[in-house]
């Protein structure tokens, strides 16, 4: 490999650098601008209570009720599973959205089949 600045010139190195950084900055500048706009639009609808709730939920110990609830859920899924599809349509999906159980549950419900079929 032959060293030397002439390579850089030949390869339009400087031009590339300036163009490139310019584009990158334009892009992210626009993005951060848009974010500001988005933020101000939805600014009112910021919900700190949710965050608070979240924090607590993460910190505190699971209560006795929750233990029952969780184990009960497992039992429910077990029985449901072994019964097969007769119980499929009884799964209360709505209130388990976003939980790992939900996905497990959905897998077996026809409604997902529908979304694909």
């Amino acid at each position, binding site marked *: *490999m*032959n*060293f*030397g*600045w002439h*390579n*850089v010139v*030949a*390869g*339009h*190195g*400087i031009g*590339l*650098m300036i*163009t*490139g*950084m310019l*584009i*990158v*900055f*334009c*892009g*992210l*500048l*626009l*993005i*951060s*601008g*848009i*974010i*500001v706009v*988005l*933020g101000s639009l*939805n*600014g009112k*609808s*910021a*919900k*700190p209570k*949710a*965050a608070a709730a979240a924090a607590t939920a993460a910190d505190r110990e699971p209560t006795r009720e929750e233990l029952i609830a969780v184990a009960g859920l497992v039992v429910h899924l077990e029985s449901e599973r072994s019964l097969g599809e007769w119980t499929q349509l009884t799964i209360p999906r709505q209130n388990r*959205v*976003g939980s790992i159980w*939900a*996905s497990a549950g*959905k*897998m077996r419900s026809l409604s*997902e089949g529908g979304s694909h079929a």
Partner: protein
Amino acid sequence: MGMLTDFLMSTGFVGIAWQNVVMILFGCLFIYLAINKGFEPLLLLPIGFGLIVGNIPIPESMSGGEEGMFFVNIYQGVKQGIYPPLIFLGVGAMTDFTPMLSNPKLVLLGAAAQFGIFTTLIGALFIGFTPQQAGAIGIIGGADGPTAIFLSSMLAPELLGSIAIAAYSYMSLVPVIQPPIMRLLTSKEERLIRMEVSRQVSKKEKIIFPIIGFLICTLIAPGSMVLIGCLFFGNILKESMVTERLANTARNAMIDILTILLGFSIGANTLAVNFLTPQSIGIFVMGATAFALATASGVLFAKFLNLFSKKKINPLVGAAGVSAVPNSARVVNKVGLEADPTNYLLMHAMAPNVAGVVGSAIAAGVLLSVLGH
């Protein structure tokens, strides 16, 4: 037993060359780094084992053997740029843009850090690489595996192995490379700066952002369409909450299968003739510079911004602009805690960190459209 001698002549021992041995040792080295030093094991372990597999001497008599075709076949996904964007899709399905949405100002730090890409490009040109090769080498400074692999598979396939290895090695060396530079370029006072807690982000913003973000990036740099498109598509799958099962599969089964195929096939197709070259040394040297320059420019740009804004940014956060998600953000947090044990910069650092991913994808787009064939 002419056949026996024939066969013995056809074992790997015959025609084994020092290059094979060296490559196999390199393979072992990367496996060691992955397992014992925790160097991006998900990629370096497959690549390392692939190096060993791909550099076993195959006798002439078999070199055309169909069984050798296996690695050529699974390598197609890399050559034709299929695996990296799909992996990026999975990355999008695990990336959380919230910190970035709640700190728009910090996004610019992610842009500044891309300076490392282009300075390295110039350096690579200087030491004699072709413009295409130089572009592929520069992108190492993007500290983004799939982006680097995607771009080099397009611009300089012959360097793919070295570039992939360099990129992932340096991404895990971030905790070693960055701190000294960060300390060198910042004063104690600056490292003590506390940043205000960031605002709440609504679900709606998280869903709209990937769409608008994609439009901006690709209108400005059409070359980044595929990478950015997949990244934000994966992200909207995650944020929409209505395609939870797709997002889940994208960030688990799908990304894992692709990572196995990507790493293993890259390793197995990185041969001595391409890897044991002075160029590789150049690539590793350039890669290190790229990371250093990226870090420096991130930090310095943060200080530059502080000149104009009343709400000071802790310049350490600028170092997180070199994506390498989330390692560099963690490094920032660590160095920040050294200065003030109660000053947690992690969530602030995540903003330039993810912005850096977008930034280097844009940079890759520029390089692709200017240098592509």
